[in-house]
């Protein structure tokens, strides 16, 4: 007769498997059809393993299943929780000080502030048909073929240093005005300030001279 293992020993060594959750989705639209434990979807073809916390949040109704999609472009196949999300950094982007932007080697938009002249100059990179020369190592620069509405206006909020809640003034530039020339604003007279903008260009920096 087979001898049973001592119960206390079994309990001490018992390690239950973490439950695995899957999302079933429509491959055409990425729409999530259902979420549940692995065994519920044995016969489904279009399914992916998803994080337990997200799965439980969907099952409990804390995340609406209707606002979940599978992103087919991401190799990891994650759930994108909300469609059309606008991150705060996209609509209120702080233009980084070049002194702390070592990772931005090729800025698309370059602003320079001259504290003596009290002027703020806005330029596009020469790669985008602007006037800001890129460093030697990127020469010769091959212009990017970008199609945009030249009347698009870029607003720059000049604010208290690192606080867009305290607005000093707002200035605007049309992208057309930056093709082949720079735009300079005068009488920008603040001891320390930040510039925020809607993030039309990915890499934007400001140099304080």
């Amino acid at each position: 007769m087979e001898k049973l293992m001592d119960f206390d020993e079994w309990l001490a060594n018992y390690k239950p498997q973490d439950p695995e959750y899957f999302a079933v989705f429509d491959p055409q639209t990425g729409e999530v059809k259902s979420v549940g434990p692995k065994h519920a979807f044995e016969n489904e073809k279009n399914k992916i393993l998803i994080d337990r916390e997200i799965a439980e949040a969907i099952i409990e109704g804390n995340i609406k299943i209707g606002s979940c999609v599978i992103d087919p472009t991401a190799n990891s196949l994650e759930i994108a929780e909300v469609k059309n999300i606008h991150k705060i950094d996209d609509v209120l982007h702080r233009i980084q000080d070049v002194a702390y932007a070592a990772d931005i080697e090729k800025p698309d938009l370059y602003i320079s502030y001259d504290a003596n002249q009290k002027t703020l100059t806005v330029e596009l990179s020469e790669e985008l048909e602007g006037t800001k020369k890129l460093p030697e190592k990127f020469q010769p620069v091959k212009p990017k073929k970008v199609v945009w509405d030249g009347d698009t206006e870029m607003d720059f909020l000049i604010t208290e240093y690192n606080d867009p809640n305290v607005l000093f003034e707002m200035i605007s530039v049309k992208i057309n005005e930056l093709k082949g020339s720079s735009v300079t604003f005068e009488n920008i007279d603040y001891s320390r300030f930040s510039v925020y903008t809607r993030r039309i260009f990915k890499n934007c920096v400001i140099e304080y001279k």
Partner: protein
Amino acid sequence: MKFGYLLVVSTHDTVDYLKLAYALALSIKNTQKTGYDQVALVIDDKTPVGELASSWVFDHVIEWNQETYWDGRSWMDQLSPFDATVCLDVDMLFTRDYSHWIDYFLENCELYVANKSYTYRGEVVTDLHYRKAFIRNNLPNLYSMYTFFKKDSEMAKDFFELGRHIIKNPVEFSNLFLTNYKPRVVGTDEAFALSAKILDIVNDIAYPLEFPKVVHMKPMIQNWPWPAEAWSDHIGFYINKKGEVKLGNFQQHSIVHYVEKDKINNEVIHILEEISWKN
């Protein structure tokens, strides 16, 4: 009685925990009164500490490498060089003087563990998204991110010893005590909560107080009507030249547990350093 803050870090592949501890220590020096601003750092390799511009913000640097990452915090009672200590998570910033909290703890407590947290708008966190194991297993809602203890306390000694034992034997304790919902990891919060429950000292170490006030920036507990993966997708983090912190348009007066480690960049460090140099 010598009081101080204890920060425990270790080397990590992707996160520079020393940088976070440095920012926190700077913010402590910038905001706390003399006598309430001592900081001890526990780190597995103290070589990089000497490379910091203001390494003096760490009054004690203790090299210790028996545990990795946050597990080291469960040894806080044995590592602290102070008679009375608050051990903190390092991804936090102080925004004003909290010495009156310490006066209370010194006078009234041997051991106190934070048992509430707040949203960035100052509301008490009630969302249970990250606390399922606590609720379903009827554990006290403890947050190890702010733990006060006195070194000579027998209760604290028992509490931390059992906490370490739980962290070392997570499967056994889960199978016996966390049967209604097994957490993926038995971390310091779960271990402390279970330790307090087993020792039956919850009412002694986590009774209701209006402090410590810690704003906990885990994204799903901010009372937003939408799910969030990262809080910084929805609101900004702003630290001005005085070291004052705003989250969105809310000025922060509590300790800010910012959670997202990338919030502490070289510019933030420079701001905090400048303030400390002027003090």
